[in-house]
């Protein structure tokens, strides 16, 4: 069975495949720990210290501290995990999505109310150049 990455041509998208999952294991498991209110509090009171418990790369650690949401995904984060970090910051999923697109919250919300981002022009990386 071919495991060719036929999805790599999709623009603005990180598919959470085996390669991403291997890279992002500790980053995602850190995010997973934020499911408990106690851990959310501990993290917010000492972010750097809390992160010492997860052997992620220095680069991944920086993306967490700086809340670089797209970089997190590029380095192996999965959005269902990074959303737990966003929840810790009291962001809704829609606010997180808006941040990742670089749009303002209002602008993003209006785009959704008006039917969302069109598929036209957004199927292939060749359309984004």
């Amino acid at each position, binding site marked *: 069975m071919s495991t060719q990455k036929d999805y790599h041509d999709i623009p603005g998208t990180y598919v959470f495949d085996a390669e991403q999952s291997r890279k992002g294991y500790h980053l995602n498991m850190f995010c*997973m720990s934020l*499911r408990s209110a106690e851990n959310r509090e501990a993290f917010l009171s000492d972010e750097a210290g809390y992160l010492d418990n997860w052997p992620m790369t220095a680069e991944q650690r920086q993306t967490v501290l700086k809340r670089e949401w797209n970089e997190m995904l590029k380095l192996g984060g999965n959005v269902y995990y990074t959303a737990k970090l966003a*929840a810790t910051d009291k962001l809704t999923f829609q606010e997180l*999505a808006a941040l990742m697109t670089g749009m303002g919250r209002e602008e993003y919300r209006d785009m959704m109310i008006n*039917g969302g*981002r069109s598929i036209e022009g957004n199927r292939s990386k060749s359309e984004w150049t």
Partner: protein
Amino acid sequence: MARIVAGAGMSHVPAIGVAMDTGITGDDYWSPLFAGFEKSREWIKEVNPDAVIVVYNDHATAFSLEIIPTFALGCAAEYAIADEGWGPRPVPAVKGHPELAWHMAQSIILDEFDLTLVNKMEVDHGLTVPLSLMFGQPEEWPCPVIPLCVNVVQYPPPTGNRCYNLGKAIRRAVESFDKDMKVVILGTGGMSHQLQSERAGLINAEFDNAFLDMMATDPEKAASMPHVEYLREAGSEGVELVMWHVMRGAIDKDAREVHRHYHVPASNTAVGHIILENTTA
């Protein structure tokens, strides 16, 4: 003999649960979405199922990257409501049906689907939002629930065809259970949405409506769609739609459509819904 009398597909967007929990379903943003479920609530009250099977995905809640089961069947007597980062939803705990679930587990495994069996599991919005959409806000859920988790977070999810055939095995399992029971199966997730990176907010109404049409009339064609088509056309999280095929495989190929609803948006997502009834039962 137990039988599956109907199936329904529906989105399970967390914001739908928040809207219900905070009492804002009547506002301008939410009311068109909920209007499309009024008929569904009357319908399921009329059907009055003895159990519902909910096919959904766990969103890094009960399962993390430590263990990633492709198909996990809940056999527990009760499932606690999970804290997904925003605190647990204020909805009743979910009661299971261990006797039917364990029967299904045995039947489905001997039918060559190698399930993971789960005796303890917190359930997230993937399961509770469909219950809220169908049953509203009761003090207790009106019937036992059998959760079937499908991995769609770690790529690759099972193929559409595998899901469709699992649905058929679920039907054989239910129909070999020696108790007179009416069962409804819900396939949840989707429709088009992308929650991540620069393409977040993608909606493809044309794709979604074509998918609903195929659910109604050509489920085998729908089940043959490759993952890359969902990812490209319906967004990276739109691949959740594979779970609808489990539901679709568990009912008649020529099941009768009794209701359909489509609305954009709920937060980042297109909401689709279809109810299909067996005519042979």
